[in-house]
């Protein structure tokens, strides 16, 4: 089987996150964003540097999906959250019990794989 082409920048971040070295991109004006980027989405600056992502974030909002697209249909119910990691927000799948999750919950970052598609994605774990 032909292997999928890498998604430039995005797969680099996932590799780094798997090694426990997740990073974000900082611009000279102090804005944060996640790769892939050639310029800061907030101010347009092309001067971006890789900075270590904070160890943990807090859940800002989340949803438990009962009705999914085909690429997630065997995974329901599953939880997706947006978490605040300081310089950036991150969207990920939450690996926790539905009763456990709440706004303000502290989470750490890891990398998971969607066994239906083979795609990797960012995951959150309570900590």
């Amino acid at each position, binding site marked *: 089987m032909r292997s999928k082409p890498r998604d430039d920048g995005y797969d680099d971040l996932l590799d780094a996150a798997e090694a426990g070295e997740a990073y974000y991109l900082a611009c000279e004006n102090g804005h944060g*964003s996640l790769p892939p980027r050639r310029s800061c989405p907030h101010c347009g600056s092309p001067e971006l540097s890789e900075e270590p992502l904070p160890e943990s974030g807090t859940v*800002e909002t989340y*949803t438990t*999906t009962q009705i999914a*697209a085909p690429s997630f249909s065997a995974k329901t119910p599953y939880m*997706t959250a947006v978490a605040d990691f300081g310089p950036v927000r991150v969207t990920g799948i939450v690996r926790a019990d539905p009763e456990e999750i709440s706004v303000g919950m502290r989470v750490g970052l890891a990398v998971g794989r969607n066994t239906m598609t083979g795609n990797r994605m960012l995951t959150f774990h309570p900590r």
Partner: protein
Amino acid sequence: MTTVRIAGADLTRFGSTPERTGRDLFAEAALGAREAAGISREEFDELTYGNFMGELAERQGHQGPIMAEAAGLDCPATRYEEACASAGVAVRAAVSAIRSGRADVVLAGGMERMTNQETEDTTEFLAIAADELYEVRAGMTFPGAYALMQRAYVQEFGGEREDFAHVAVKNHDHALPNEYAQYRSAITVEDHLDAPMISDPVGLYDSCPITDGAAALVLCSDEYAEEHAIDAPVAITGTGQGGDKMALQDRTHLNRTPATDRAAAEAYADAGITPDDVAAVEVHDCFTVAEVLALESLGFYEPGEAVSAARDGETTKEGSLPVNLSGGLKAKGHPVGATGASQIVEMNRLLTGTHPNSEYVDGGVGVTHNAGGTVASAVVHVLEVVA
């Protein structure tokens, strides 16, 4: 600058017609609008056409020329794609073409065919309006994205599920007499609260349906209407468009829609009106929280204040600002690439007294609001009775 008038308008009945092709749907709306305008085919300078998922749903790209043929026209035709705001940007392009002097008569509209595939496939197709790497791979669906926004809204501003239920109940009530609406059935707050969850806290009755349909408008310049004695009492006097970061995670707020703020400010300034002048509004209520966010960004309410508007009766047909008298996306239906044009068709009917809910419009200014994705795009139009 030339005034842009609505010379003719039509739409298909919205609903589930999986056997009908896209070109058949668009032809019905386009020919209806052309007949209402009474303008012959040689007079059309352009077709501006909105469609979102044609490559996926019908394996058909390059739909502009196909739809020109379907509409019986022989003119340049361009497809506009901006997720659920596709037809809104198509109408805006038509307005620009006429105002620039490049065109006198333009057919503007949109079509979406959505029920000819399984619901879960349609869910997948709709999800491509979100960021593939950072949202779709994390399991974000279209309802899921609005669920994230609704929870963030309630977290900061408060609001009960019952408040959102009242938005849905109102829009179903408004659709009852509308012969074009997909759902012409009343629902109760209890029905809403008892319905299954799709993506918590978005339930089945917070969500618009999957819909097939098309809408079309014949727009012409003031000069053309006068020269050819065309009866076109309503004009599009303002147009505005706003953009925002694609992914929710990159936005300043998860519970506000600045793309709509920007679109509204531009459209109001363009028309020389304020929110106080508006007699009726059609907003993009793909989910109940979307109506709430739209009303705040359009300047009718402060952030955090619109959630109770339907429950308090302010946005019902008898209220001070009737919202979605057509039934909205919630009950009229949401063929995504046709929605922005259909809102203008409905507002034109409301303002000309030919809509079954026209009696609830107290004034001559209407506003339509069409949003793309999680409002990374927004288009606002101002319609006015000018003569």
